[in-house]
C-alpha cells in the first residue's frame, strides 16, 4: 500500500479498521460514517430533552407545528439534488416571489385560505421566471451551482429590495396605507398576515391530548411527497436522475441536459414559493426585507441533519431532519440554562450547529468525491497492471 505513505495517520487508521473489521463491524462502521450527522443529533436531542424539562405534549405540539410549516419548503430541495445540482441555495428566490405575492394579497384584502391559494397562484410566474434565470446561470457554471445559488440570493435580494422599497406604491399600485411606508411609497418593514394566520393549520385540525395536528398542512405535504415519488418515475424524472449521475453520459444518451437542469430548478423555485407562503401563513406576519434571507440555510441544514448529502436526499431525510433539527432548536435554550445557567449558550449552540452541519456536509461530500476518484484511479491502475501481466 504505497499510497498510504502520503495519507494522514487518522485516515490510514480508519482505512485499516475498515479493512480488518468483521462484516457486522464493517456494516456498523459504514452506517456510522453515512449517518454521522443524524446520529450526532439524536444524541444531542437525547441529552437535551430531559434537561430542558419540557412536557411531552408541549414538545410534540411544537415539533408537529414546525413540521407542518417547514416540510414543504425542505421538500422543494429534493428535485435539484436528484438532477445533480446539489443543495439549491437559490430556493430563496422562490421565497421572495412568495413574499411579493403575499404583499399583493394583503393589499387586496383577500383573507383566509382563498388568500393563500391566490398568493400561491400569483407567485408561480415570478418563481418560474426567477428559476429560469437561476437555471440558465447555473448551466453556465456547471459544478459550481451551490455557490452560484448562494450568491444569486444576494443579487436577487437587492432587486427584491428595489422593487419592494421603491417601486411598490410608486409604480406598482398599493392601496392600503397600513402596509405602505409613511413616506408614501415602499412597503413597511413588517407585513401583517393576521387575516390569514394559521388558516391552513386550523382547517381540519385535530386536537389530541393537548397536541394540535394541522391535518390540512399534512395533506398538502403528502400530495407533494406523492408528486415527488410519481415525478421520479416519469420520463423527465428519469432524465433528471441520469443527468444527476453523469451529465456526459446523459448527453450522449440524447437527453437535453441543460433543459432538464433548468426545469429542475424551476420546479424547486416554484415549490419554494409555495413553501414560503405556507410557512408565513403559520407565523402570521413577516419582516418584509429579511424573511427570506436565512430560509435556504435553515432548510438545507434541516435536510442535512436528516442524513441527506449534496448528491443524495430522500423524503425520509426531510422528515427525520425536520424532527431532529427543530427538536434541537426547541430544547437547546432551556438545556443551555440547565447546564450553564445561561440561555444564550443554547442560542449560540444551535446557531453554530446550523451552520456547522452545512459546512460538515460540504466537507464530507468533497472527501467522498475525492475518495471515489482515487478509488477509481486505483482500480484502473490495477486493471492496467493485470492486463499487462496477462499479456
Amino acid at each position, binding site marked *: 500500500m504505497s499510497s498510504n505513505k502520503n495519507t494522514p495517520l487518522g485516515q490510514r487508521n480508519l482505512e485499516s479498521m475498515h479493512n480488518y473489521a468483521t462484516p457486522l463491524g464493517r456494516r456498523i462502521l459504514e452506517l456510522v460514517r453515512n449517518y454521522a450527522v443524524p446520529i450526532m443529533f439524536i444524541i444531542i436531542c437525547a441529552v437535551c430533552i430531559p434537561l430542558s424539562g419540557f412536557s411531552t405534549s408541549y414538545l410534540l405540539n*411544537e415539533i408537529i407545528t414546525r413540521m407542518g410549516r417547514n416540510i414543504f419548503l425542505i421538500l422543494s430541495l429534493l428535485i435539484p439534488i436528484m438532477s445533480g445540482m446539489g443543495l439549491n441555495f437559490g430556493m430563496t428566490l422562490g421565497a421572495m416571489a412568495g413574499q411579493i405575492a403575499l404583499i399583493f394579497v394583503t393589499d*387586496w*384584502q*383577500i*383573507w*383566509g*385560505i*382563498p*388568500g393563500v*391559494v*391566490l398568493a400561491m*397562484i*400569483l407567485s*408561480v410566474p415570478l418563481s418560474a421566471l426567477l428559476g429560469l434565470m437561476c437555471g440558465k446561470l447555473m448551466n453556465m457554471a456547471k459544478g459550481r451551482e451551490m455557490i452560484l445559488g448562494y450568491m444569486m440570493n444576494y443579487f436577487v435580494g437587492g432587486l427584491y*429590495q428595489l422593487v419592494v*422599497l421603491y417601486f411598490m406604491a410608486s409604480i406598482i399600485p398599493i392601496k*392600503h*396605507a397600513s402596509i405602505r*411606508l*409613511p*413616506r408614501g411609497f*415602499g412597503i*413597511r*418593514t*413588517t407585513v401583517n398576515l393576521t*387575516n390569514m394566520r394559521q388558516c391552513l393549520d386550523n382547517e381540519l385540525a385535530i386536537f389530541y391530548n393537548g397536541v394540535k395536528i394541522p391535518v390540512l398542512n399534512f395533506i398538502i405535504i403528502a400530495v407533494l411527497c406523492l408528486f415527488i415519488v410519481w415525478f421520479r418515475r416519469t420520463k423527465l424524472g428519469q432524465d433528471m436522475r441520469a443527468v444527476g449521475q453523469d451529465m456526459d453520459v446523459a448527453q450522449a444518451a440524447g437527453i437535453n441536459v441543460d433543459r432538464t437542469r433548468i426545469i429542475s430548478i424551476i420546479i424547486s423555485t416554484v415549490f419554494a414559493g409555495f413553501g414560503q407562503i405556507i410557512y*408565513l401563513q403559520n*407565523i*402570521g*406576519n*413577516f*419582516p*418584509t*426585507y*429579511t*424573511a427570506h*434571507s*436565512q*430560509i435556504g*440555510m*435553515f432548510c438545507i441544514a434541516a435536510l442535512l441533519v436528516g442524513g441527506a448529502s449534496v448528491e443524495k436526499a430522500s423524503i425520509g431525510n426531510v422528515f427525520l431532519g425536520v424532527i431532529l433539527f427543530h427538536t434541537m*432548536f*426547541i430544547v437547546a*435554550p432551556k438545556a443551555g440554562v440547565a447546564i450553564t445557567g445561561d*440561555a444564550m449558550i443554547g*442560542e449560540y449552540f*444551535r*446557531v*453554530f450547529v*446550523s*451552520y456547522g452541519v452545512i459546512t460538515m456536509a460540504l466537507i464530507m461530500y468533497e472527501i467522498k468525491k475525492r475518495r471515489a476518484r482515487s478509488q477509481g484511479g486505483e482500480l484502473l491502475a490495477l486493471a492496467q497492471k493485470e492486463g499487462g501481466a496477462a499479456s
Partner: protein
Amino acid sequence: MNKKGLVIRLTALAVVIAIAATMMVIGRGHTIYFDNKTVENYQGNEYKAFERVVVTVKDEEVAKLGKRERGMATWIGQNFKMILEITEKKGDEPRIEEIELTLPYNMDGIIINLPAYLAGLPEEAWLSEFIPAPEPEEDEEDPTIGDGLGLEGDLTGDLGGDLGGEDLGA
C-alpha cells in the same frame, strides 16, 4: 409545440386564472361595523336606536349593543349573514331577525346602521364606508438605514431574528 399541446396549455392557464378570480371573489375580506344609533331627519323622519341589539355572526356572539354603541365583526366573501336579537324598548320581549346582505366588493370597512336597515330604508341610508382616522405622523421608517454594508443584525448570527417571527427560542 403541436396544436393539441398548445390547447392543453391554454386550457390549464385559463383554469388557473379562473381559480385565481374565484379566490379574489370568495376570499375578499370585510370588516363590518354595526351601529345602533338614531338616524335623525332622514327625509323628515327619525329612526330611533334600539334599547339593545345582540349580533351573532357564524354562531358567535360578536356584539351586544346598547343605544349609541358600535360593534364589529369580520367576514370573508360578499354574502353576509347575521342574526340579530332586538329589544326595541325597555321591558319589551326581544325578537330575532336573520339578515342576509350583499356587501360591496370595493369597501374594506362597512358601517351598517341597524335601525335604518331594519326600517327598510334604501341602502344609502344604512350603509356607509368606514374610513380610518389618519394615523399620527410617525418617524420616517427607512429599512435601508445602516452602515451601507448590510451587516447590521447579522453579526451575531441571530437566526431567530433573521427568520422574523418564528419563535425559534420557544
